[in-house]
């Protein structure tokens, strides 16, 4: 019998994390992640969380402590946002190269200056090359399910990489939605205890991370790449298994919505991805043959699925981020997936930076511009005062 919890994205993420029974949580508060760590602290007080919550003095130390804890063979979890994620950057690389299956929520928030706490995905995007797997969620239910799925994914013996679960500031982190919860027993059965591939153990005195010459270093990079490639299949398998067990499904690497017979496919992530469904419904009613492929995983990137979709449709990409000097990050990746293999046209839009609202009406406007052949290769939607 599943229970329904009505709460904000952050409290839902805290609940999911605690149900995975991490032994160590190390975290530092930052808006809008704060209520996530407060949620964990409340579970410490209530006794529901039996692990250790280390209140560190910075995000750099949060990730360093998670690395130390994970290296002893146990499960560790953290959460951050924006500048906190950027401060962690060095240790994000470290966690991935050390092959430690740490799970972290990142609440996508604007980077300063100027100070701004609203939704923007440039923080997560800028960690593209750290080796972390990256999810972008579009509902609180998806946050809950993805946190639990992420431990299984990260700890899989063929993956052994950390996972970042991204969701938009306030739009999800501070908005209450009903979420179906499995029982603790069900989670325990579905998510077995971590079996570490290596750990710090006085019975087996090994030195980790010492000087590595170029051929060996190149091998470990290739091994990480192999693991991300393997994860493409595993993410889908885990999502299907979750559906079979709990009846909920948010897609694999992509969530496809009304893509059958579509001549145009809209690609978006996070909260814009959820809003896009309304826009698709409206445009379908008007007879426009358009579907949505919501990108759930930025890493590994679903190049194969996108290429497949491009065989039958042109692509429209909305990015709530900008790789300054080039274009939106997802747009860039999408074009890379098509290169030399597809004749589809691709249109890119930058929208919603700095937390600007992107309602379904605006999404429809962007899509229609592309459908009507009036969109440029890359456009900034609704840019004011330039």
């Amino acid at each position: 019998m599943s229970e329904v919890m009505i709460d904000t994205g952050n409290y839902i993420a805290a609940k999911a994390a605690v149900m995975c029974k991490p032994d160590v949580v190390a975290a530092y508060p930052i808006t809008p992640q704060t209520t996530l760590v407060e949620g964990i602290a409340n579970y410490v007080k209530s006794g529901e969380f039996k692990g250790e919550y280390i209140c560190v003095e910075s995000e750099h130390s949060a990730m360093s402590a998670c690395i130390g804890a994970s290296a002893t063979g146990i499960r560790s979890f953290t959460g951050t946002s924006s500048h906190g994620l950027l401060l962690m950057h060095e240790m994000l690389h470290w966690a991935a190269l050390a092959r430690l299956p740490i799970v972290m929520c990142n609440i996508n928030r604007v980077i300063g200056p100027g100070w701004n706490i609203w939704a923007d995905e440039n923080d997560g995007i800028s960690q593209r090359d750290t080796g972390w797997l990256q999810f972008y969620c579009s509902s609180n239910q998806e946050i809950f399910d993805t946190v639990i799925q992420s431990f299984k994914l990260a700890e899989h013996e063929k993956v052994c990489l950390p996972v970042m679960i991204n969701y938009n500031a306030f739009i999800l982190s501070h908005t209450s939605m009903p979420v179906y919860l499995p029982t603790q027993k069900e989670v325990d059965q579905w998510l077995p205890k971590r079996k570490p591939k290596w750990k710090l153990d006085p019975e087996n005195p090994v030195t980790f991370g010492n000087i590595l010459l170029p051929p060996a270093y190149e091998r470990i990079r290739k091994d990480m790449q192999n693991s991300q490639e393997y994860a493409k299949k595993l993410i889908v398998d885990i999502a299907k298994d979750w559906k079979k067990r709990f009846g909920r499904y948010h897609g694999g690497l992509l969530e496809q919505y009304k893509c059958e017979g579509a001549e145009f496919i809209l690609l978006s992530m996070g909260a814009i991805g959820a809003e896009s469904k309304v826009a698709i419904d409206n445009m379908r009613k008007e007879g426009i043959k358009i579907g949505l492929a919501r990108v759930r995983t930025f890493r590994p990137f679903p190049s194969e699925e996108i290429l497949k979709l491009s065989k039958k449709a042109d692509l429209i990409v909305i990015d709530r981020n900008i790789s300054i000097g080039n274009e939106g990050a997802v747009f860039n990746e999408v074009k890379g997936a098509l290169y030399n293999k597809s004749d589809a046209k691709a249109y890119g839009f930058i929208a919603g930076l700095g937390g600007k609202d992107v309602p379904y009406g605006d999404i429809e406007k962007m899509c229609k511009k592309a459908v009507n052949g009036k969109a440029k290769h890359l456009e900034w939607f609704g840019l004011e005062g330039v």
Partner: protein
Amino acid sequence: MAIKDLPREECYLPGSAACPGCPATMALRIVYKALGKNTIMTVPACCTAVIESLHPHTSFDIPTMNIAFEAAAAAASGIEAGLRMQGKGDTTVVAWAGDGGTYDIGIQALSGALERNTNFIYICYNNEIYSNTGIQRSGATPYAAWTTTTVGGKTEFRKEMGEIVMAHHIPYAAQACVSYPEDLFKKLQKAKSIKGPKYIEIMAPCPPGWRFGMDRTVEMGTMAVETGAWALYEYENDKVTFNGKSKLILEKKIERKPIEDWIKYQGRFSHLFKPKKDVKRLKEIEEHTDQVWERYRKCYL
């Protein structure tokens, strides 16, 4: 306790990549002997990350995890919590860092770990420079010393890391020196027996960094203590107790030797002696050292 009474077991194995006369390896041998095999060590960027030798080999017979430069103390907090959650709270967790990783880039994480009462031993081997990157200035570099980033000599006096640590009011802190292995051993054993955060700093004269012969490491350490450039002490229950020659200097039972007697053997100070003696700076060094000891007497006697 005499040298011959130290445990015979060696966790510091032959074949390391250390320079001849390296003080870090001398100290590590004693650390391993004092703490035993049920120890886990985390090492940030520092000479030891090289000394431990190349993958797939290691010269350390205890589990060791390398970590980023500023992260040793935070990683130790995580290791300690991870072990405790598995019922392995009896394993000694050590962060082993140089003065760069302690005084400068790692001071925030260290302060955090001390404040949140992590049960570990933080050991700083202080060779007064960034030696691994090739002799650059650190917060521990003494006044007037040449480094590759203080070419005419450092223009500031070093900070007192030990006193910064004491301001955290942790259960135990100590200053030691590689030249006094029995004293170091005893301080390590005491640290191991106490729960909570412990800090031990070891004076570690570096032959290539300080520009002296590789056969004079021990002598340079002894002279650092005898000249009062370095003090041996313990801090326990908010009380500082000087020991060895430092105690005698503090109590004015012996005079400290002139710093000049120590630094004239070190190439890093050669610009103070030739082509012409830099009387002004040598005087500043002696006066500053006297001031430091007057303050020690006021605070700790």
